């Protein structure tokens, strides 16, 4: 079709042509065309098939509000081609059709399926026979929805997120929005204006982002603005909403035919793209701006056979007729007009949704027949037509004889009548039952008419019906844009490179990346038992607690006694809550009279640091707490040869006398100042070295060079299990207390007060409900963690840890069992793979029960 003569404000550049493909065939467009305008220019009139009935649909709004022009562009479904700029090489296809857009086999639903698919039919059909449910599901999944997603597609679009701070955010770049932006900028404020159309407006002292859509208004003046593949998180002191008013389709039989358009849609085709929307037109409108389209059409050479002002001459009945979905005439109160273009709209509805989200109220104005925002909260302003300043308007009829209320979801007036008859008499219920306003337009074109129709059907006032809750996002937005760059901050130790170089399998432990093993955990265990191994334990939480009240502070926090810990000694401690539950465990070393060095579990460092600070915020004791977790790296050298190995790296005296079990000494190892803690989590002679993290690689290389075998988490787990050393969070849960975990010596009940004292006293008086015990399997099975313990046919406990011990040649583990079964040698059955496997309770460590290896 030929274009009209050049229009004064046309958006096309007639000197620049480009080509894209539609249904496999080339389509020529001008630079500045949308895909929709170019298709229209090439003769396309049917742009889509409707959601439920697969009726033919054509251009209606030309502004991206309605669903009629949705197509798949370059594999991206649900693109509104009336707003999407044409680009060279784009591959465009219709969607939601079985067959072709001309012969959609699913239009059978419209032709003969209507009686079987009234509103809510899916609540009453496809129930029996039940064995056909998978079939019904497959069928429905195929016919529901609009566009298709490539299930095997990978993310190819990059989305970014950016933060902006402004004094004023203006949403809407029409006359009122621009005025508000200019005024604010002139007043020295930092202004950002967002408009959903590509903006040609000059920016006088303010920033413009366009095309961009504000998605919602959140607390604290936060407005996410979707600008293509960039999400702007805008914080504004003042938000001015100038989103205008949305033209509303009239409700009448045939109102969804191809050729029925909203006034602005027709205007844009002429003024933006120099296209005549038809040959013979009838115009029905309720405000001056819309009625003025009749002149625009006449200037474009369209024969306007009738132009009706609904404020003065509103008809009772309108009926549009068509053939194969295309309009050919309209009958208005008996008077017939042949036409191929019917421009029809009621009073425009202020686009108040963002204001409502921000907390404004919305009231029905009976003199104008629309809902207007009122009672704006502080920091929120409205300008222009969205306030209800629409010029001279009057309410129109809720319907002119039937037709579609919601063209997105194919909801007709009959459907609302039926919903009401079935008892869904509130608008929120009607919405959910009929799905009106739940389609792509999200109520822009149907919310008002559905409320007004409901009011009329019930003989109630619109104010009584009310509106449904406005929620973000205000415009459809891709999940990818909201997700942005997926990035989870990981913590890595200063030895991470060494683990990777050694071929370690790296795993997540909380936020940390750690070495699970270096290929053969059993060999690593053997190295620790027979020679010497070294493990990176830099992930341990480390807190310096120092000051005149340091001892008193720790006494109040821990069930343990630490006031009598001598400088140069270290002790194991278990932190409890006031509910008496185990929160964390670790070691406490005394470095000086007023100086303690506390270690925590790897995943507990932040929460224990917070715990200490929180309690002291109440107690106000004279103590400084410093989180040294990242500052200090740590490695544990363990094995019968550990002492000899260490002696080669330091000139300090590390003999058994100078550095006994549970000693804490500072010494220089490999020229690195260290704190050495002689403790034994893995059950062999061991030294935990703490030192400034930048020296980690040097110290590690030295120790490995002297013969220490690196061992990882898995080997550590096996070794500690042989000693029945618990891991908080693995062998304990949020209900476990230190008494039931079989460590009663930790609790010093004679202390005046400590966090958890009362609860532990109650627990001691009450007696345990279950106890944590070691067990060994009688045959070669290793039960998975979480396996159920069975005793005399009844469930009685669960396995928390289990491993195969090569040294002991059997499966070992820890489990919670009822107290009466927590006896040495008691027999247990453990459910594994549906079978009952046999085990025996062992209350002493499986390996080196008297600890002589540790203390050597």
């Amino acid at each position, binding site marked *: 079709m030929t274009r009209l003569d050049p229009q004064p404000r046309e958006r096309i550049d007639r000197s620049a042509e480009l080509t894209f493909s539609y249904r496999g065939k080339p389509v020529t467009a001008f630079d500045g065309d949308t895909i929709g305008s170019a298709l229209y220019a090439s003769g396309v009139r049917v742009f889509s098939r409707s959601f439920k009935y697969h009726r033919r649909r054509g251009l209606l709004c030309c502004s991206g509000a309605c669903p009629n022009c949705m197509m798949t562009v370059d594999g991206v479904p649900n693109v509104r081609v009336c707003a999407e700029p044409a680009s060279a090489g784009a591959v465009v296809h219709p969607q939601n059709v079985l067959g072709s857009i001309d012969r959609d086999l699913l239009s059978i639903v419209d032709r003969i399926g209507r009686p079987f698919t009234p509103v809510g039919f899916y609540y009453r059909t496809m129930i029996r026979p039940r064995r056909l449910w998978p079939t019904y599901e497959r069928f429905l999944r195929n016919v529901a929805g609009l566009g298709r997603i490539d299930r095997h597609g990978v993310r190819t679009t990059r989305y970014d997120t950016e933060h902006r701070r402004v004094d004023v955010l203006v949403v809407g770049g029409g006359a009122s929005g621009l005025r508000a932006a200019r005024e604010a900028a002139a007043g020295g404020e930092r202004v950002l204006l967002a408009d959903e159309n590509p903006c040609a407006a000059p920016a006088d002292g303010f920033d413009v982002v366009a095309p961009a859509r504000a998605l919602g208004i959140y607390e*604290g003046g936060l407005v996410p603005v979707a600008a293509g593949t960039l999400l702007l998180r805008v914080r504004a002191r003042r938000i001015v909403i100038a989103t205008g008013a949305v033209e509303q389709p009239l409700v009448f039989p045939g109102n969804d035919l191809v050729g029925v358009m909203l006034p602005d849609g027709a205007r844009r085709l002429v003024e933006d793209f120099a296209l005549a929307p038809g040959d013979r037109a009838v115009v029905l409108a309720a405000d001056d701006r819309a009625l003025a389209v009749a002149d625009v059409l006449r200037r474009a050479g369209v024969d306007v056979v009738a132009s009706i002002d609904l404020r003065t001459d509103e008809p009772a009945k309108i009926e549009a007729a068509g053939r194969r979905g295309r309009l050919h005439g309209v009958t208005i109160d008996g008077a017939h007009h042949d036409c191929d273009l019917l421009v029809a709209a009621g009073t425009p509805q202020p686009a108040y949704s963002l204001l409502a989200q921000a907390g404004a109220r919305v009231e029905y104005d009976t003199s104008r027949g629309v809902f207007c925002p009122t009672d704006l909260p502080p920091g929120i302003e409205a300008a222009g037509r969205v306030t209800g300043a629409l010029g001279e308007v009057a309410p129109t009829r809720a319907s002119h004889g039937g037709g579609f209320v919601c063209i997105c979801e194919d909801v007709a007036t009959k459907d609302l009548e039926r919903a009401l008859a079935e008892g869904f008499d509130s608008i929120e219920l009607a919405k959910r039952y009929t799905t009106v306003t739940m389609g792509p337009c999200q109520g822009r074109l149907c919310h008002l008419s559905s409320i007004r129709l409901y009011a009329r059907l019930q003989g109630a006032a619109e104010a009584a019906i009310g509106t449904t809750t406005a929620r973000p996002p205000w415009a459809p937005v891709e999940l990818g844009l909201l997700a942005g760059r997926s990035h989870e901050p990981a913590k890595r130790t200063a030895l991470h490179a060494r683990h990777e170089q050694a071929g370690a399998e790296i795993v997540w432990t909380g936020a940390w990346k750690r070495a699970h093993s270096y290929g053969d955990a059993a060999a690593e265990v053997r190295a620790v038992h027979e020679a010497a191994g070294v493990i990176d334990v830099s992930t341990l939480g480390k807190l310096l607690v120092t000051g005149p009240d340091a001892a008193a502070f720790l006494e109040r926090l821990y069930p343990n006694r630490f006031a009598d810990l001598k400088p140069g000694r270290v002790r194991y401690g278990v932190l409890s809550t006031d*509910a008496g539950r185990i929160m964390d465990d670790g070691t406490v070393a005394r470095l000086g009279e007023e100086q303690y060095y506390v270690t925590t579990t790897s995943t507990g460092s932040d929460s224990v640091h917070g715990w200490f600070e*929180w309690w002291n*915020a109440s107690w106000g004791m004279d103590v400084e707490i410093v989180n040294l977790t990242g500052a200090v790296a740590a490695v544990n050298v363990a094995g019968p040869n550990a002492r000899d190995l260490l002696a080669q790296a330091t000139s300090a005296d590390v003999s058994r006398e100078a550095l006994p079990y549970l000693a804490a000494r500072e010494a220089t190892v490999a020229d690195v100042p260290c704190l050495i803690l002689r403790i034994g989590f893995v059950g062999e002679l061991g030294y935990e070295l703490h030192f400034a993290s930048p020296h980690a690689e040097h110290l590690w290389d030295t120790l490995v060079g002297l013969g220490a075998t690196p061992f990882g988490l898995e080997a550590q787990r096996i070794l500690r299990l042989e000693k029945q050393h618990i891991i908080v969070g693995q062998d304990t849960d949020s209900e476990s207390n230190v008494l039931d975990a079989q460590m009663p010596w930790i609790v010093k009940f004679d202390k005046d007060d400590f966090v958890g004292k009362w609860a532990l006293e109650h627990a001691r008086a009450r007696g345990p409900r279950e106890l944590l015990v070691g067990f060994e399997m009688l045959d070669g099975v290793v039960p998975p963690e979480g396996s159920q313990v069975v005793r005399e046919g009844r469930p009685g406990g669960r396995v928390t840890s289990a491993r195969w011990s090569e040294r002991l040649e059997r499966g070992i583990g820890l489990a919670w069992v009822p107290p009466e079964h927590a006896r040495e040698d008691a027999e247990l059955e453990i459910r594994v793979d549906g079978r009952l496997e046999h085990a025996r309770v062992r209350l002493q460590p499986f390996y080196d029960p008297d600890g002589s290896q540790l203390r050597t």
Partner: protein
Amino acid sequence: MSFLLPCPHCGPRDVNEFDYAGEVTTRPTGTPDVRELAGYVYFRRNVAGVQREWWHHRFGCDAWFLAERDTRTNEVLCTEVPAARARS
């Protein structure tokens, strides 16, 4: 949730910079019985109105402070740093 919480040191910040640490409770004095202890450990007033609560500016200055916030509107009426601790 995106309201701005005024940190006493750093000023108004996105609430997601903070950890919420719950309603301010009163730790029992003396020796509570099981019922009183359970009340302290498990029960909260959970008011629909102004609540006194703990916050931790985890991503900022790391301070622990108190706030009074209307739980219906998320309006923060005031914040305060706990009384200065004893210092020698």
